[in-house]
């Protein structure tokens, strides 16, 4: 794997999956509207090579006004919303009530983008601490790797632990272990769970 990891930026090139193409395309629209966002969850492990499938890419978006959301909706040319065709309802009945909405390209059901606002303090922190991936010359903002690992360990399903393990193994030498330990502590995750990843019982 040829990858450049400098500060808060990761640069690499790869053959793009349909998930990568969807993420890049959707992100470019959000960037055009200057809306802050980060990709999170399983897609991040897939982005860096994990060979598993997900039906969606999850994205946390800064909380924007209804006016700005309506403008964004108009700009999502070629996409439809699974939940409703009414943008006002999407904002009032879903996003405002902290329910995610899903967008797909026209004529496609899978994959889709799961779109939600940064509603909690933790989600806002993930958004604020985001990092940049430059993939084939395109910009993709993602949550920092330490946040991904700690959150996946917090969720705790087998799939989530596997994603955390994959990211840990790929970025092992670049991870800031103090930050990772602090995040685990904040989420109330016992240190022993970190040893699942490293195999080091003293972790």
């Amino acid at each position, binding site marked *: 794997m040829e990858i450049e990891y400098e500060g808060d930026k990761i640069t690499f090139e*790869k*053959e793009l999956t*349909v*998930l990568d193409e969807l993420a890049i395309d959707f992100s470019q629209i959000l960037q055009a509207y200057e809306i802050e966002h980060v990709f999170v969850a399983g897609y991040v492990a897939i982005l860096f090579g994990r*060979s598993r499938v997900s*039906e969606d890419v999850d994205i946390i978006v800064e909380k924007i006004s209804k006016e700005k959301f309506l403008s964004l909706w108009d700009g999502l040319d070629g996409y439809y919303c699974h939940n409703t065709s009414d943008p006002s309802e999407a904002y009032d009945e879903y996003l405002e009530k902290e329910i995610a909405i899903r967008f797909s390209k026209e004529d496609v059901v899978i994959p889709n983008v799961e779109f939600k606002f940064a509603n909690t303090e933790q989600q806002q922190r993930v958004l604020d601490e985001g990092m940049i991936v430059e993939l084939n010359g395109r910009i993709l903002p993602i949550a920092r790797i330490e946040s991904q690992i700690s959150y996946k360990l917090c969720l705790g399903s*087998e799939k989530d632990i*596997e994603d955390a393990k994959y990211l840990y*193994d*790929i970025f092992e030498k670049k991870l800031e272990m103090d930050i990772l330990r602090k995040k685990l502590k904040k989420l109330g995750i016992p240190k022993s769970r970190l040893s699942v990843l490293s195999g080091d019982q003293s972790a």
Partner: protein
Amino acid sequence: MFYQVIKVHDIDEDRRKNLEERLRFIEEYARWVKNTPNEIWSKQQKEIINSVLKSADKIEKEGIEIR
């Protein structure tokens, strides 16, 4: 009926062993990705993900007919 003949303890033990085995495989796979040129691992990844998602989308749109 099925659940009555499986002890909860056995399921937990099986799950633990299965997860350990999965994590060992992921460690091995991550090592392979790190030591393999991007064009090779990403080509394989693309073939798997795209083919599965294409099938899944077709099923979502057309449904499954069981005869």
